[in-house]
């Protein structure tokens, strides 16, 4: 099939599976860390704003493959021999938290100030204003850019090849080394990446329609 054996195809599919796993790690970790970053970035406290801003600048100022190296070798120098998946997962977490934090900060600030004021005038507490009035509106605004960024996460997991993590790109590289059919192998890999990313966009549309009525 396609000039590749079923086993060879399955080899790529397995790589794609690990790409998905790493993407999920990056997104979940990025969300857990990115939410506090977004909150800190829009905080009233200057110290919080400065620390979170420094974090975002730092991560955004370093290429992802270098973050991968730093995490991987940093952990091993620190005496932690971790699997490449863990190192890549941590690196993806750092990377996506900085970008998601920045995206979500923008979404929180995109809700008009008059909404805060209206909630304040109804005697809601600060956290109640945020949870019941601002957050639902910010979430709706956040869906398209967040899903757009999910696609970035999936594609950028391919940098984990630099620390030898077995993802889709890595499996394609290995397969090419044994088949010498680079165009074919990487075209199949490209198709697999597309198959992962395209449904994400479809999902985005669904969420958006649903959120509209929540």
């Amino acid at each position, binding site marked *: 099939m396609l000039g590749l054996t079923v086993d060879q195809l399955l080899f790529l599919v397995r790589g794609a599976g690990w790409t998905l796993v790493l993407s999920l790690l990056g997104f979940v970790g990025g969300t857990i860390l990115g939410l506090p970053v977004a909150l800190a970035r829009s905080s009233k406290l200057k110290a919080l704003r400065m620390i979170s801003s420094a974090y975002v600048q730092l991560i955004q100022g370093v290429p992802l493959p270098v973050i991968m190296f730093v995490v991987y070798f940093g952990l091993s120098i620190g005496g932690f021999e971790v699997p490449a998946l863990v190192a890549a997962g941590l690196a993806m977490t750092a990377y996506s938290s900085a970008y998601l934090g920045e995206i979500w900060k923008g979404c929180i600030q995109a809700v008009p100030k008059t909404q805060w004021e209206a909630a304040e005038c*109804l005697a*809601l507490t600060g956290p109640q204003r945020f949870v019941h009035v601002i957050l639902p509106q910010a979430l709706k605004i956040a869906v398209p850019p967040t899903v757009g960024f999910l696609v970035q996460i999936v594609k950028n997991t391919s940098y984990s090849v630099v620390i030898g993590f077995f993802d889709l790109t890595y499996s394609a590289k290995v397969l090419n080394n044994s088949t010498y059919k680079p165009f074919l192998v990487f075209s199949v890999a490209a198709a697999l990446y597309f198959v992962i990313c395209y449904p994400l966009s479809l999902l985005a549309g669904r969420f958006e329609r649903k959120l509209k009525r929540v």
Partner: protein
Amino acid sequence: MDPMVRFQDVHKSFGAVEVLKGITLDVPRGDVVVLVGRSGSGKSTALRCINGLETVNGGELHVCGEKLHDGKTDLRKLRQEVGIVFQSYNLFPHLTVEQNVTLAPRKVMKVGAKEAKELAAHVLAQVGLSEKAQSYPEQLSGGQQQRVAIARSLAMKPKLMLFDEVTSALDPELTGEVLRVIERLAQDGMTMVLVTHEMGFARGVADQIVFMHHGKVWERGGAEMLRAPQTPELQQFVATDL
């Protein structure tokens, strides 16, 4: 009995600019006080001081028995007693009309779900929008949205209502329905301070009209004041604004 609101020589500045230059004004319980004046004369600022959205820099401001000038007021408690409605409605777009109205009673006053629903039905009937409970704000006209905003404030059972040019953003044919709601509230004895450019309405509803000019109470009186202005400033205002 103490007045609901008492301004005593209240000053308010934004940076170096003094916007309220010594306001003295009483709002007796059950009265309707209408603030009129040119844009920039400090009407909104005065109104926003009453519910603590702006803090005063000098003088004394008593609202519902609280001393707002000492900076120690529990603002959340104050805002359960003082409702405010703005020109731009500011409804919560992600919530239905009913949810808009019940959010604060449920979260702040811890009213139960069933009671909250009844409360919503009551205040929505008051503004004539019972059939819109399940609509979203975007599905309503401007006049309807503004009436929902009034209902949302009323649901907190306030002792005092503030209205800041609530019909200014509306098409002329929609102002009537909103003004009628306010008139009915006045008849029911609600204490109100309102800023408006509708002079006919002001004359009809006001117990006291206050003309503000350059951050000061320039002239005040009953409804007849607008017919016989004492100061050239009010004369000019009346001539251009009526």
